[in-house]
């Protein structure tokens, strides 16, 4: 699980810390522009680094800098910093930090510092172009790397259980979601273990999960049938060489069945399908860290509470579920003890985050937010 996230000088974050406090289920609430979706971008960036995206230019850009002035900082020589602390699937604690800088005499960002600590043992540190790797107690080795390459994805790991590889595998496994139904297609020519945040590759995700782990299909179907009780099956029919096309088969009047293509599903049904694959993965594949930006989007009002509670049940015994929302039903499906408020006092101020229980609010959080009274 992610325990802490720190972001400096990136988008709306400036010396901003999110402390998840060991919560395995977290709701992040906040107004528009408070930084909820930016969190998805930061986590996606870190996941991409762990997955092999190592060119600094592909990680950050001048556009990703905080737009407002860095108080007390050097605007001509900006730095961005990212830190993530968490507990990996094995239970070991991990802390990774990456600092990037734009030298005053250059237009290209480079790595300023980088470090990885696993179970209180420093695995490697890096300063500019030099990486120092701790190989054994009291034994280090240093080697140079391109200053415009992040070291994490390129450090060699001799075994799967090497700390660097274990950390990369944990970070690569984050399920990061912000589905855009209009981009989601039902066609696939291959599989993918995780979808892009916008889920344009939903069909490839479904294909990979249900092919590699056939037991997931029953959980997937059962999850969907809660909302679509007439759904009989979901079939991935061949539609060309290596190509498959998703069809949802429903039982109609007089027991007759009829199939509709994925493209014919509503936006809400597509998002429910995403939730169903996620629930199936959590049940059959194992602990996942999932961040979902507004899972209530496109979902009918009467279904939101059920969807959120169903997702929470899927992550009840393992993994971590972090969702953002401003939907009253979603807010009520989480307890205030599990809720964090992310807020900015104005568009020129950085995002801050506090547990809702520390805000001294009385009454219903959703009502309080509707009145605009949630700000500290």
């Amino acid at each position, binding site marked *: 699980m992610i325990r802490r996230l720190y972001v400096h000088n990136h988008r709306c974050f400036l010396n901003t810390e999110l402390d998840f406090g060991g919560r395995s289920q977290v709701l992040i609430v906040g107004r528009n522009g408070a930084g909820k979706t930016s969190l998805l971008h930061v986590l996606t960036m870190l996941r991409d680094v762990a997955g092999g995206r190592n060119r600094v230019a592909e990680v950050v850009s001048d556009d990703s800098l905080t737009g407002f002035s860095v108080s007390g900082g050097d605007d001509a020589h900006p730095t961005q910093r990212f830190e993530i602390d968490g507990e990996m699937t094995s239970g070991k604690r991990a802390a990774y930090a990456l600092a990037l800088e734009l030298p005053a005499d250059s237009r290209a960002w480079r790595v300023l510092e980088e470090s990885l600590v696993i179970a209180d043992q420093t695995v490697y540190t890096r300063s500019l172009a030099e990486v120092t790797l701790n190989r054994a107690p009291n034994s280090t080795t240093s080697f140079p790397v391109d200053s415009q390459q992040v070291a994490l994805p390129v450090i060699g790991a001799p075994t799967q259980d090497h700390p660097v590889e274990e950390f990369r595998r944990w970070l690569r496994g984050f399920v990061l979601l912000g589905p855009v139904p209009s981009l989601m297609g039902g066609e696939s020519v291959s599989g993918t273990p995780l979808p892009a945040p916008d889920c344009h590759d939903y069909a490839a995700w479904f294909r990979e999960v249900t092919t590699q782990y056939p037991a997931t299909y029953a959980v997937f179907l059962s999850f969907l049938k809660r909302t679509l009780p007439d759904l009989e099956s979901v079939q991935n029919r061949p539609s060309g060489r290596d190509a498959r096309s998703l069809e949802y088969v429903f039982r109609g009047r007089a027991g007759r069945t009829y199939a509709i293509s994925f493209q014919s599903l509503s936006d809400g049904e597509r998002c429910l399908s995403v939730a169903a694959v996620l629930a199936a993965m959590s049940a059959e594949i194992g602990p996942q860290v999932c961040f979902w930006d507004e899972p209530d989007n496109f979902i009918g009002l009467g279904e939101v509470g*059920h969807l959120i509670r169903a997702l929470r049940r899927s992550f009840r015994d393992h993994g971590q579920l972090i969702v953002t929302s401003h939907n009253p039903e979603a807010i009520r499906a989480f307890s205030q003890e599990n809720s964090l408020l992310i807020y900015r006092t104005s568009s020129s101020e950085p995002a801050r985050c506090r547990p809702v229980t520390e805000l001294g609010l009385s009454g*219903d959080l959703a009502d309080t937010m509707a009145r605009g009274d949630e700000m500290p």
Partner: protein
Amino acid sequence: MVNRYRPHVVVLPEDTANLDVANGFVLHVDRDCAIQVLGPAGGWDKARDDLLSDHVQGLRRLPERRLVLLIDFDDDLSRRGAIRDACPGGVADRVFVIGTNTEVEELRRDLVGEGVLRPNTLEGIGELLAADCRAGTDDTWSHPRLAHNADEYARMRVDLRPILFDV
């Protein structure tokens, strides 16, 4: 969404603390599609008023609906009778009025002190109550702050337990 024409349970908590307990309960039932938790009413008297003004009509129209009012009794156990007496005939037997004899936070303090509530959350209380319902026991329901619900809990075991749990 619950199927209104099949047996289902609607929970009306009086405040956010009771809502949190209800959330913890729902996370541990077997058929979460058969239970719907509403937003906090804003006090036990508001919950009673909502029952009479809004929910009685729904209970009349939908014979498979049960309604659970989750309230703090604040040392006034006559609240249950007042609510039940106000319910019209044909509906009262599907209304359940339960809660702590004082308030939920005091129950939490007690359970933490007794080393029963881990983690120390209001949802954890809901989990304990659901565990009893599933097993048909009263380990938590017999707690001094909850024991006054014995008759309601007995009715719930007969009527609500088969709706929510695989028994």
